[in-house]
Each structure stands twice: as C-alpha cells, then as structure tokens.
C-alpha cells in the first residue's frame, strides 16, 4: 500500500512540476520566446490548462490511497485553507478597490497564501493527531 502511495506521490510531483513549467512557458513565452504570436500563446495556455487537469486527477488518485486518518488531516486542512482564502481574498480585494493599498491585488499573492496556509494547517493538524 505504501509503495503504491509513493508511486502516486511521484506521479503527482511529476505533473505538478510540468504544470509549473508550462505555466512559466505560458507566462514568459509570449514576451521572450515567440514574440506575442496569439496562436502559440493560446496553445501554451491550453497545454497548461490540460496539464493542470492531469495534476488534479493525479492528486485525486493519491488522495484515494490515503487511509482514514490521513484523509481527515488533509480534508480539515483543505477546509480551513478554503475558508481562510475566501475571507482573506475578499478582504485583499476590498483593500485594492478602496485604494487602501498602493498596488493592485494580484492573484499570485492569493495562490501563495493558499500554499502557505495549506502547509501550516496541515502541520498543525498532523501534530494534533499524530
């Protein structure tokens, strides 16, 4: 069971890194590689989207290999992350709309927040149960 779980973890890592790679390509490619050609930009975005779907599918497969406690730990941290992201994200957006911050509210900041929050809540939960 553990070996299969490790295999699914490796597959997820592979899809995650390729997703990051295709994201970088779709972001910087139009400016630095193909000089803004719309067809190539569309293709890069499509490939990135497809890669993202495969990454989610790999994550789901890995999740199905978790046992009940691991699932509980992950689900609780994901629920907390989702709630915090909605609340913090909307407040962040309001700060931008009301010009209380001098810069634009970037989605990247929120993605970073999701990642950091998920890791923190995961480790807190893990410590609670293990």
């Amino acid at each position: 069971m553990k070996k299969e779980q490790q295999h699914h973890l490796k597959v997820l890592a592979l899809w995650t890194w390729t997703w990051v790679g295709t994201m970088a390509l779709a972001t910087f490619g139009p400016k630095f590689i193909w000089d803004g050609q719309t067809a190539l930009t569309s293709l890069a975005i499509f490939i990135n989207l497809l890669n993202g779907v495969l990454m989610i599918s790999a994550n789901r497969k890995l999740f199905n290999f978790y046992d009940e406690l691991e699932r509980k730990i992950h689900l609780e941290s994901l629920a907390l992350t989702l709630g915090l992201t909605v609340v913090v994200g909307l407040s962040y957006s309001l700060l931008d709309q009301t010009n209380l911050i001098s810069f634009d509210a970037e989605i990247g900041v929120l993605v970073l927040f999701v990642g950091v929050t998920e890791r923190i809540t995961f480790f807190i939960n893990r410590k609670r149960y293990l």
Partner: protein
Amino acid sequence: MKNKVRELRKLKGLTQEQLAEVIGVSRQTINAIEKEKFDPSLPTAFKMAQLFDRSIEEFFLFESHE
C-alpha cells in the same frame, strides 16, 4: 472515545505496524487510535473486532455527554 486497542493488540502479540498492515491503515493511524486522539471508521472497527475476536462494544467505550 476510550478504547482497549493497545491492550488487545499486545494480547495478540502484534506490533502497531503489524496491526496496521492487517487492518489496512497506517501505523500512525493505529497509534492515534491507541492514544485516543482519533476514532476509527466503522469498517476499521469491524476489522479490529474480527481480528481480536470481540464485539466492538468490548473495546470501544462510548461515553454519552448527555
């Protein structure tokens, strides 16, 4: 929920790792159940009951808060 999993596991001469393998969960899950930090699902409780040859009520002690 209070339980006697550790006691019954030792009575069977099993390590946490071995019990986890038989039940199909991780060793950490068995540890969390024994420390009463986590209540297992019904299928896991039934698998334990079969292995220990006891009814679930004999080793999981439900305490009503009413």
